[in-house]
């Protein structure tokens, strides 16, 4: 029997990369901007001329809150409540993701808010079935 070749999927590749600590995006050859996480076309200008790139994972945490408990999604029941943040990546994209290195309490989040924007670095948070993007606050 003939084997059927699997077509490439940007989503599959993103999560496979994440498991290895690689943060895949695309860069537009028309306008030069990034789309992260990756799709097949530029989110800014609609061009299909895009190339795969890897992001540094460096960014700035602008704001941090927490999710609801119990979690809306079964995948996150074990870790809820977790801190969830609004982050500007060094390469430009804004991303929201789980934040590590601070507790999900009003007191801790209040102190972080008073501190203002802080540098963070991306890492893969292993869940039972999927690696998940997270950002760790620098000490």
């Amino acid at each position: 029997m003939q084997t059927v070749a699997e077509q490439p999927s940007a989503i599959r590749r993103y999560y496979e990369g994440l498991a290895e600590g690689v943060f895949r995006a695309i860069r537009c050859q028309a306008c030069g901007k990034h789309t992260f996480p990756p799709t097949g076309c530029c989110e800014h200008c609609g061009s299909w001329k895009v190339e795969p790139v890897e992001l540094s994972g460096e960014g700035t945490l602008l704001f941090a809150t927490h999710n609801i408990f119990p979690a809306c999604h079964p995948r996150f029941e074990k870790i809820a409540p977790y801190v969830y943040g609004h982050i500007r990546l060094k390469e430009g994209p804004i991303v929201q993701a789980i934040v590590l290195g601070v507790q999900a309490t009003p007191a801790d989040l209040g102190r972080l808010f008073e501190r203002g924007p802080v540098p963070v670095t991306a890492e893969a948070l292993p869940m039972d079935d999927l690696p998940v993007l997270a950002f760790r606050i620098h000490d």
Partner: protein
Amino acid sequence: MANKLRERTVISGVGCSRFGDLLETPELKGLSIQELTAGAVKEALDDAGLTGQDVDAVFAGNAMVHSSQVPGTYSQLSKWTGTQFKAGVHFEAQCSTTNVGAALAAMSVAAGVYDTVLVYGLETTRTMVKGYSPYEREPISHQQTWLWTDMAVNQAYGVPQGYDIFSTYNGLVALGYCRKYGMSIEDFDRGMFELCRTRRLHGSMNRKANIQEKLEDRAAREGFSDAFDYWRSDKHNPFVAWPSRLLSLVTTADGASAMVITRADLAKGGKSQPVELKGFGISYSDLPWYGEDPTFWEFDKRAIDAAFDMAGIRASDIDYLHTHDCSHISGICTAETIGYLEPGKGLAAAREGRLRFDGDRPMSTHGGRHAFGHAWGASAGTDTYEAVLQMRGQAGARQIAKRPEISVIHTHGYAMIGTVVVLGSI
């Protein structure tokens, strides 16, 4: 784009059910989804002085098919609404559904294709079909409601990686607001309390609202003499996404709404006073919904500008406003973006009572998503319903003293489709 309606179109009839729970709320308990919807449709058709056979087309809205289980809604509901043999479609724009339907109806009427269109929306976010029963229902768990609802949110990268509505729509926006305007978390909390108090006051004056109990009355029932102490209690009003609390959020509901859209000249001398649909604007965005500033949402601005341009109005013309308030702080940000409230002063306006039905900046006099309740695809129609009542002077105890001549209704269809509708008195 031309951004013009070629014919004047009006809303000639409106209807809406009580919002609540098909298993326990008075006026709803025991109803099937067919009867729930038919009730709202009958009210709208009666209001317009028509039957289902007098309309040319039916746009049937329903977002969360998982719980309603009536896809092919146009035909499944046709014998319940008297609309057999009409043109029709089932569509969804999540929580903007019914007002996107109004826009589609206005376009089809203004294009000369149809004279009269019936738009309705139905949703059950508290109950779902039990087993394979044609009439029995059972409660939906909190987690199941959000799993189904969040299917409208980025399923490639957002939801699988920890997104939830509470942090993205509430907590982060709240922090962005406090940072931008130098507001303390304590002041923010007090403002949110007053905003909730206003919405609950409106709900207490509306027999169709999901929650008809004032916040002060609820606090007293729980043994609190000071309602703000109740507000700050972790037991009764926990942080769902610090600094945002549970009572600043949507409450889920089962419900239905309907409206009749027709040519202005055909509505003349009709049964009820028509209201002109002067313009609309629609703009959508995937996550993230905002850039560095969580208080400014580009797609909303685009929808607002398009609607105001089509209607030929400015912010200073607005007499009544509803902004989508699944998240109370997001609703304030939108009202400030629209220009109805001064940037950074929305919560102060709430504390001063200016957003009440008897204030100088009345908003969401039906009670909004928290007190009136939220049945995703049906809710935008209830916002329009309330605006039409206010413009006709039919809002009863919560009537705005000077009848609004220009009303603006903004909704967020999850996730996200910003929809703005401008209504004008004739």
